[in-house]
């Protein structure tokens, strides 16, 4: 693509710009995964079932959207951002009978796809940069990196499930996603969330009591928990009491040897050693049996009794209660991903349907409902079949959905009445996620948002005060080979050794927490001041993202908020968007807009670039009035851009 900035261009018309830009590689080579003919066939099959549904329910078949609406929707759904000005103008001007499927190919080949999916994984699997107590905080970077790779390589959903459920070992010693189950103390919550993510079944109430609203009993939770029962991570090493007694002795016996500052750093070293050594899933994870809790209150078991594993639905698998079963994690994953557990394929098929189509086939996102109890039995079963036929290839599945006519229906303007079930009569306008908003603003700010710097992987180096000690893997191995006493000795020995090498800043009174954070690596990634896509920020990112309701990724899945707040409105009216786009002559939006001659032409271009549609007569008149009434015409156009960006239409997908 020819860069506009590098060319000396006379003021030109809209058409001329397009000539200059050159055609985007819209006809880039089609997806290399699955036969395009099969995708088309499946898309048609879906459309046929949807059409039957319309007939059955006597619903008027919705119209198909115009190109511009289709484009904006397709961009946001597949790669999580609106089109850049160039992409937008080019697609609108492109004359080709198959331009919509060319666009779909372009999008699913874009790097933006995995960026958008990464955010989805962060939310669904509640991936935060770190977790743990304030004494031993573990970096979650290895797991985050694994999920990022899974998104980039289009890992199949069943493989992903199997990998995270069965991987064991220290996270720094394995390339597998070990440590998935070790998420602080909330082991039971994490299990319930995991079951819900993969099967759509909610067991969270049964954690503590029989669920009065569903069929699940507390025993079901425990017999399922049996499969994944086991030690929580690795134990930290060392006898903290002994270590600090020794420090006190040293302080008394040789005053000056250990100032409080040094004690703080020794403590940091201790915590860091344990954070690295104890981070992972124990090799013993997965006993296959579990002890009922002390307050177990039902007749089918006694407090303290051992029960074996028994799957509560789907494929029937068991483990015994009399001895541990080494294969229990594998059995757990087998059950989850089994063809005889229909909840697995149906839940992911439904979740991704909602992600692409904007309409949930069940009353609550991600909940499993037996297809026969929904309006869409045939459709859901077909979707699950397609998903299985694709071997859980999520990208091809989503591409198939986007290739349907159903995807192209105009958004419905009808409000759902109380108690009315969702129909397939078009998507309803929903607000973009915090990440989609940020990435869309980027599209109006930089030429190619998908080529911005990406975040670095978690360092494999064990650093102390910025200096390499050894690899984290070696450190983990080393620490785990020591007994308590040896560890205590090693700690002091290593500390003395490092103390000599410490870099001057640490010596010059940086406090212990600084040294500690120097050792920790979660502050990685590109410079904080540099523009980057939402997926490249720390998770969660705070700031702008918190204002727009990004999930804290702490505990609950589907937690991101899309409600409006005054802080959001203030951010849009007076915040970063001003310097990123509106008052930035180099923003990708202004680079195009500023070249257009003629008041009406320029206003039209602003609408196309910002909202991806042309203004109606009233809007044109209003904007012309603003331009004509302004002393400073350039400022007037900026005001139109600002008005459009702060309008609610900008933030909704419809």
């Amino acid at each position, binding site marked *: 693509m020819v860069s506009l900035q590098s060319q000396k261009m006379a003021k030109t018309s809209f058409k001329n710009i397009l000539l200059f830009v050159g055609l985007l590689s819209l006809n880039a080579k089609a997806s290399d995964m699955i036969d395009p003919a099969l995708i088309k066939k499946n898309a048609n099959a879906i459309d046929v079932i949807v059409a039957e549904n319309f007939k059955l329910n006597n619903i008027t078949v919705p119209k198909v959207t115009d190109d511009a609406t289709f484009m904006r929707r397709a961009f946001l759904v597949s790669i999580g951002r609106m089109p850049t000005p160039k992409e937008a103008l080019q697609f609108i001007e492109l004359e080709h009978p198959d331009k919509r499927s060319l666009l779909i190919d372009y999008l699913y080949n874009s790097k933006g796809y995995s960026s958008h999916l990464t955010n989805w994984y962060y939310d669904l699997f509640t991936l935060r940069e770190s977790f743990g107590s304030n004494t031993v905080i573990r970096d979650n970077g290895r797991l985050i990196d694994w999920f990022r790779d899974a998104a980039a390589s289009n890992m199949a959903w069943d493989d992903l499930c199997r990998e995270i459920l069965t991987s064991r070992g220290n996270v720094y010693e394995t390339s597998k996603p070990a440590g998935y189950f070790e998420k602080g*103390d909330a082991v*039971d*919550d*994490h299990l319930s*969330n995991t079951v819900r993510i993969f099967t759509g079944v*909610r067991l*969270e109430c049964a954690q*503590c009591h029989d669920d009065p609203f569903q069929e699940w009993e507390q025993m079901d939770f425990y017999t399922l928990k049996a499969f994944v029962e086991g030690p929580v991570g690795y134990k930290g090493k060392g006898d*903290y*009491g002994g270590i600090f007694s020794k420090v006190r002795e040293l302080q008394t016996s040789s005053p000056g040897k250990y100032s409080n500052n040094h004690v*703080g750093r020794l*403590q940091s070293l201790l915590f860091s050693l344990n954070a690295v050594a104890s981070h992972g899933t124990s090799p013993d994870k997965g006993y296959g049996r579990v002890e009922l809790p002390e307050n177990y209150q039902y007749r089918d078991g006694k407090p303290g009794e051992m029960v074996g594993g028994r799957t509560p639905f789907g494929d029937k698998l068991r483990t015994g209660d009399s001895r541990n079963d080494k294969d229990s994690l594998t059995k757990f994953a087998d059950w989850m991903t089994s063809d005889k557990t229909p909840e697995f394929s149906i839940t992911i098929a439904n979740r991704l349907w909602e992600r692409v189509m904007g309409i949930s086939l069940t009353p*609550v996102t991600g909940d499993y409902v037996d297809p026969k109890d929904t309006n869409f039995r045939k459709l859901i079963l077909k979707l699950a079949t397609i998903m299985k036929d694709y071997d859980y290839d999520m990208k091809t599945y989503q591409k198939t959905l986007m290739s349907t006519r159903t995807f192209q229906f105009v*958004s419905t*303007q009808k*409000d*759902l009445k109380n108690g009315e079930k969702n129909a397939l009569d078009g998507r*309803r*306008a*929903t*607000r973009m996620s915090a990440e989609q908003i940020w990435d869309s603003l980027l599209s109006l700010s930089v030429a190619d948002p998908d080529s911005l710097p990406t975040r670095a992987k978690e360092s494999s180096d064990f650093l102390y005060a910025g200096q390499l000690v050894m690899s984290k893997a070696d450190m983990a191995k080393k620490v785990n080979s020591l007994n308590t006493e040896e560890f205590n000795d090693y700690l002091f020995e290593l500390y003395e050794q490092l103390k000599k090498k410490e870099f001057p800043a640490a010596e010059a009174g940086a406090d212990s927490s600084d040294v500690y954070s120097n050792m920790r690596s979660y502050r990685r990634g590109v410079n904080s001041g540099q523009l980057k896509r939402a997926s490249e920020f720390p998770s969660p990112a*705070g700031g702008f993202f*918190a204002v727009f309701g990004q999930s*804290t990724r*702490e*505990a*609950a899945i589907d*937690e991101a*908020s*899309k*409600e*409006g*707040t*005054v*802080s959001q*409105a*203030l*951010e849009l*009216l*007076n*915040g970063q968007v*001003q*310097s990123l786009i509106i*008052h930035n002559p180099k923003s990708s939006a202004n680079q195009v807009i500023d070249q257009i001659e003629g008041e009406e032409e320029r206003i039209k271009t602003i609408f196309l670039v910002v909202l991806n549609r042309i203004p109606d007569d009233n*809007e044109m008149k*209003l*904007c012309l009035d*603003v331009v004509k009434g*302004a002393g400073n015409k350039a*400022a007037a156009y900026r*005001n*139109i851009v600002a*008005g*459009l960006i*702060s*309008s*609610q*239409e900008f933030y*909704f997908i*419809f």
Partner: protein
Amino acid sequence: MRTNSTDEVSRRQFLIDNARRLLGVSVAPMLGSSLATSAHAKEGSKNANPARSVIFLNMDGGMSHVDTFDIKSGNKKVNSIESSIKGFKVANYLPQTAKVLNECTVINSMTSKVGAHPQGQYLLHKNYTPLGTIIHPSLGAWVTREAGRVNEELPGYVAVNTPAGHTGGGWMGANYSAALVGKPEEGLKNVDRYHSVSEKDFNDRLKIADALNAKFHQNYATPEVKGYAGLFDEAVKVMNSEDLEAFKISKESSQMRSAYGMTDFGQGCLLARRLVEVGVRYIEVTLGGWDTHYDNFTGVEARCKELDQAYAQLINDLKSKGLLESTMVVLASEFGRGPVQPQYNDGRSHHASSFTSIIAGGGVNKGMVYGQTSKDAMKVASDPVTIYDLNSTIAYGLGLDAHKVVYSPGKRPFRIAGSDKEKGAPVTSIFT
């Protein structure tokens, strides 16, 4: 000293509370509701003379009760001084606070089962234990929703120097989340026009956005879109509000500012007082750094220095402005610290089974000490108050029914008082 620890009713209450804890809630009704509700309120009871605002001072990290407001004779490490409550001593780190305690009810009998920070702070703010399957709203969100806003132009809930995770609206949605202020000096962000945007520019922008919004709302009348109606009016109302000045502590005299202490916490307390004046319902200010595993006494002394000046000045200032009766000032921590020390390097460990909170204003008794701990400060000896009770008491103070059940969008029942299993009740006997 006014304590009620010896009266018959509260001893029975202690029994009930323990029975409730050991056996589950259902026992209390069997023993007779008159017993169960003497010190703590009956379900559904409301305060007839409610306060208007709350200032919640969050001592983040676990304030050492045994080195501040619950000093035992065995504690040789801290010198105590007489306070303005007769016979009640506090640490000598708290000379100013000692003088204003006669405006306060000191609750020495706080107790909790949660001894870890994230869970403890979660409980303190949300009155539920983290569930992993839903995010509970903070008390400030509950209050804003149930009591409504006083000042319609400003946010109902403002949090200063407090992690956003503690102050969210949870399932109630972002509408009830706190407006966040980082540095008190910076006030609320983005309330001023961009530097090169004139008033006319700004109005032109609004005119265009308004026209587009009108069309959009007409064409896409979904609940989610409707939720955005009036949002810009709100924002512009905030921008134009004369009360926005309340966020600018620079408007205060330098004497007033230094009276609170030139620390984030001190200036945050000053900001809180200014926000109370203009009718903000719920303001939280956090003072961190109480997690004194190491070198406890240096740490506690340093925190107390910040706390002492700001707290005493806040109480005095509210009082002199006639605002103390309508403002509950709550000082609380997620737990206390272990009386037996040292842990590690002269530190103290987490200790949840006994700790201290203080409430001033809003109609609570002046100069009362409620409940006490055992001689070694390890346990609560009388009138236990759980965090559930404390939050219920704040709600009661504002005239809210802490037991009213509200349903989340997912149709799950919640109440201010906490879950069925561990639901609290307002401690009504601390009110005048």
